[in-house]
């Protein structure tokens, strides 16, 4: 992630890996590194907002911390924006744009939700109107359900389906924007476990094929390593040799820790080797600690500033 001028980080990863939490942490890290940053959520989501302590997520940007804003898109807001920007429709059309039949149209046309929201994202970053706020870095919380790239493949699918017209053109703009590695970087979030790593590699591979290899992989919730040296073995043996239930319980715990730690090491190794196959370029792999209190992000933000933000994202 050494490109100073990269404008957008698309943060992706399966449910349950802590993606939204890390989006918030990335936003805070960017702000701490002196960037004007914004976290964006889609479809009225507010998981990042919640992590950042924002009671209500809104379409209008809100300041959440010094240098960091937040907003959440909805398809309806983005449609109104699209109509005004691209078609230069007067604001009086707004009541029609927000009418019930229009909302039904928006829901009934496959892929339109994704297209309009990604279109707004592109506008906000690449073509801001005079007077509109701008940011150095946008961090998008992109859910990776299904095939992982559902949202990002939306543009291509729409281009193929629509074939002509405003949707087709918008889809083309989005596709170019997302596949320009100078502008857009993908961040894959995973856990140091076998299945999540497997999924992260699948996702990275699909990204490399469709767009570009991920700029970074964040390995969330890395637990402390069990030493697994002569001293640690001596400790286990000393505990196992004693009959007291407490000593036995400790010995069992030491065994569990050793096993867990071994699996964690294996998973990291699988990830490292797998990423080498995905791309010849170096992928920043950042290991983040398992937080005791997930609302106190400071330790993670510190690491992200040092590893990703210094020298620019």
């Amino acid at each position, binding site marked *: 992630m050494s490109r100073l001028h990269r404008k957008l980080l698309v943060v992706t990863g*399966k*449910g*349950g*890996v802590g993606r939204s939490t890390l989006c918030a942490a990335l936003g805070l890290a960017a702000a701490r590194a002196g960037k004007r940053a914004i976290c964006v959520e889609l479809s009225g*989501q507010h998981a990042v907002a919640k992590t950042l302590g924002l009671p209500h997520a809104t379409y209008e940007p809100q300041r959440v911390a010094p240098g960091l804003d937040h907003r959440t898109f909805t398809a309806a807001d983005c449609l109104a924006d699209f109509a005004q920007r691209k*078609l230069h*429709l007067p604001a009086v*059309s707004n009541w*029609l744009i927000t009418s019930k*039949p*229009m909302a*039904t*149209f928006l*829901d*009934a*046309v*496959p*892929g339109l939700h*994704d297209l309009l929201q990604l279109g707004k994202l592109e506008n906000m970053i690449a073509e801001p109107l005079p007077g509109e706020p701008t940011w150095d870095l946008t961090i998008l919380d992109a859910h990776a*359900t*299904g*095939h*992982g790239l*559902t949202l990002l493949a*939306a543009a291509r*699918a729409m281009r193929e*389906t*629509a*074939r*002509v*017209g*405003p*949707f*087709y053109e918008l889809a083309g703009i989005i596709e170019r924007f997302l596949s320009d590695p100078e502008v857009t970087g993908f961040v894959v979030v995973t856990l140091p476990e*076998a*299945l999540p790593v497997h999924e992260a590699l*699948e996702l990275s591979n699909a990204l490399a094929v469709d767009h570009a290899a991920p700029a970074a992989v964040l390995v969330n919730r890395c637990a*402390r390593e069990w*030493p697994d*040296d002569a*001293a*640690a073995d*001596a*400790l286990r043996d*000393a*505990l196992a040799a*004693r009959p*007291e*239930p*407490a*000593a036995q*319980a*400790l010995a069992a*715990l*030491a065994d569990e*820790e050793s*096993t867990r730690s071994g*699996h964690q090491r294996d998973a990291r190794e699988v990830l490292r080797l797998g990423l080498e196959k995905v791309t010849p370029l170096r992928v920043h792999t950042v290991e983040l600690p398992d937080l*005791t209190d*997930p609302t106190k992000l400071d330790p993670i933000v510190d690491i992200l500033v040092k590893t990703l933000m210094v020298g620019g994202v």
Partner: protein
Amino acid sequence: MTTLVVCCGLGGVGKTTTAAALGVAYARAGKRVVVMTIDPARRLADALGTEAIGNLPVRVTLPDVSGTLDALMLDRDATWAEVIRRHAPSAELADRLIANPWSRAVSSRLSGAHELMATEKLHALATDGRWDVVVVDTPPSFHALDFLHAPDRVRRLLDRRLLGALFEPASKGLVGIATRGLASLVRRVAGEAVMDDLSEFFGMVSALSTGLRERGAAVATLLHSRECHYILVASAAAPREEEVSEFLAALREDGRSFSGSVLTRATAPLRVPVNAMLAELPTRPKGVDAAGWAHALSALVEAAATHERRAARDAATATRMARMSGAPVWPVPEVDTEAGAITALGLIAASLPTL
């Protein structure tokens, strides 16, 4: 009567694994069970050690069970094609719909279509007669509620009458003026060609609407029956209790029967209190490096403290969820999957009920 078990929950909580483990539990209880998973990451296929499976049940080999376990992975596109063929008035129309680009986009790109396909398949399995129990995983979503509400919403959307005004505005009166304004606006937003394609697509898909509606009613009867049990799967690491209570309220309002919650990745209490353990820390044997010993001790003390804190947290979560839902909570420990997926499912199954 076929028993249905619907596993709801947010993404990443272990829903798929729970569904598979429930299947194992039923097979152990002597039932003929089929598990439908919907997650396209093929996690069930992984967990069951089967090759990629799609839309067709595959027999899973289990050691020492008196029942049988079949598994299948929902294929959205194939299911949508099945739905079209079932409800289209003619084979010719079905072919045209299946080939239509907007129709092809329905199964993968229309919000809620995944849930619709899931309920269509669930109905097919439940009425097949080959199984005593059908366990279903639900599509990954932001809200556990999506599975309850999305299918009907999509059935309604796939009816051209709803959008009729956009394609053929009324010609007279105030309504005429308003709908003509709207129609021309939509034409400008979407473009003439796209609107013509969409008009054709919605015209064709509307031919399915009677069939879809009737099937919708049959599915609703099934999903509201006493034989249909809803289970909520939540992760102990992030139980998202607000969502849980929202889900329960919706189930209750809908008159569906809630059976209980599975709390995955729950930490079991330590058998010995941590303080008693720490009193038993051994002294450093001769010949062991002092710094290494201190490091190992601190790692062990930290692990014990973390374990105790998590166990206390998870026990409190389970108690709160049980109180909130007025139904049982089944904590499921994290299981070592390295020993083999089937072994792991068997261990999880031991913590799960058969309803």
